[in-house]
C-alpha cells in the first residue's frame, strides 16, 4: 500500500475512534475541563476524556517500546522520531496557550477536523483561525 493510502486509512480509523469516544463533541470536552463542577453537588464531573487518552496510551505504548530501535518502517520509510524536546519557554508558553484555546471552545486539532463531518459552518471558522495561528507561528518564530 502506498503512503497516501495508509495515511487515509489511519485517518479514517483515528476519526472513527474520535467519534466513538465522544470527543468530537466540544460539550464533552468542556465537561471534562469544567473541573470546578465536580465540587458542586448538582453536577457530576464527566472525566471520560481520561479514559480516551488512557485507552490510546495503553494501546500504543507497548508498540512504541518494542519498535523504538527500528530504523525503517514496514513501508521502507525512515523512522523519524522527534529529538528529545527541551522543557523550555516555547514548550511551556505553547502548551499554555493551546490549553486556553482548548478551554474557550472545546476543540483540539483532531476533533476540530473530524467535526467537518457535522456540516456546521462554525467549524470551518474555527479551522481557518487555527490555520492562521499555525502560519503566524511559522512566520514569526523559527
Amino acid at each position, binding site marked *: 500500500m502506498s503512503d*497516501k493510502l495508509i495515511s487515509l486509512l489511519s*485517518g479514517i480509523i483515528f476519526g472513527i*475512534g474520535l467519534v466513538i469516544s465522544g470527543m468530537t*463533541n466540544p460539550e464533552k470536552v468542556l465537561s471534562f475541563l*469544567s473541573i470546578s463542577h465536580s465540587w458542586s453537588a448538582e453536577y457530576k464531573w*464527566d472525566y471520560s476524556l481520561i479514559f480516551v*487518552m488512557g485507552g490510546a496510551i495503553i494501546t500504543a505504548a507497548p508498540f512504541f517500546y518494542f519498535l523504538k530501535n527500528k530504523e525503517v518502517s514496514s513501508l521502507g520509510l525512515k523512522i523519524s522520531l522527534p529529538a528529545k524536546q527541551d522543557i523550555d519557554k516555547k514548550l511551556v508558553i505553547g502548551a499554555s496557550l493551546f490549553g486556553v484555546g482548548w478551554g474557550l*471552545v472545546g476543540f483540539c486539532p483532531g476533533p476540530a477536523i473530524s467535526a467537518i*463531518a457535522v456540516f456546521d459552518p462554525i467549524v470551518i471558522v474555527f479551522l481557518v483561525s487555527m490555520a492562521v495561528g499555525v*502560519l503566524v507561528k511559522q512566520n514569526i518564530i523559527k
Partner: protein
Amino acid sequence: MTDFTPYSALVGGIIIGLSVVFYFFTTGRLAGISGIFENAITNSVNRFSNLFFLLGLVVGPLLYYNVIAPKVSIAFNITDSYTLIILGGLLVGFGTRLGGGCTSGHGICGIGRLSTSSIIATVIFVATGMLTVTILQQFGIYL
C-alpha cells in the same frame, strides 16, 4: 454538561491508539494531528500524505454516522460566539505549533513514548484549559 461514559471512551481511545500504532508501524511517523495539519497546509515533504490523513479524519465520522452506526444520533454542541471560536482557533493553532504538539502528539504519542517534555506539556494544557473554563464560568459563560 454531558454524562460520564467510560466504556465508549475507552473503546474509542483504544481505536485511536490502534490508528497511532498502524500509522507509526507503516510510515514511521507519529500521528500528531497538529503537526500533520501544519504539514498539510504548508509546502512540506509529506504534504499530500498528510492531507490524506486529514481527509480520513473527516471520512471516518461520515462512515460511522452513515454506514457503521446509522441509528446513532450525532452529539454535537458548540458555542455560537464567533469571538470565542476565532480566538480559540488562533490560540490552538499557534500554541500547538509553538509547544510542539497537541492532545495526540504530546498526550498520546508523547506520553506513550514516556517523553518527559510531553508529560509536562500535557499537564500544562489540561491545567490552563481547566483554568480557562473556570474563568469563563465566573463570567457566566457556559456552553
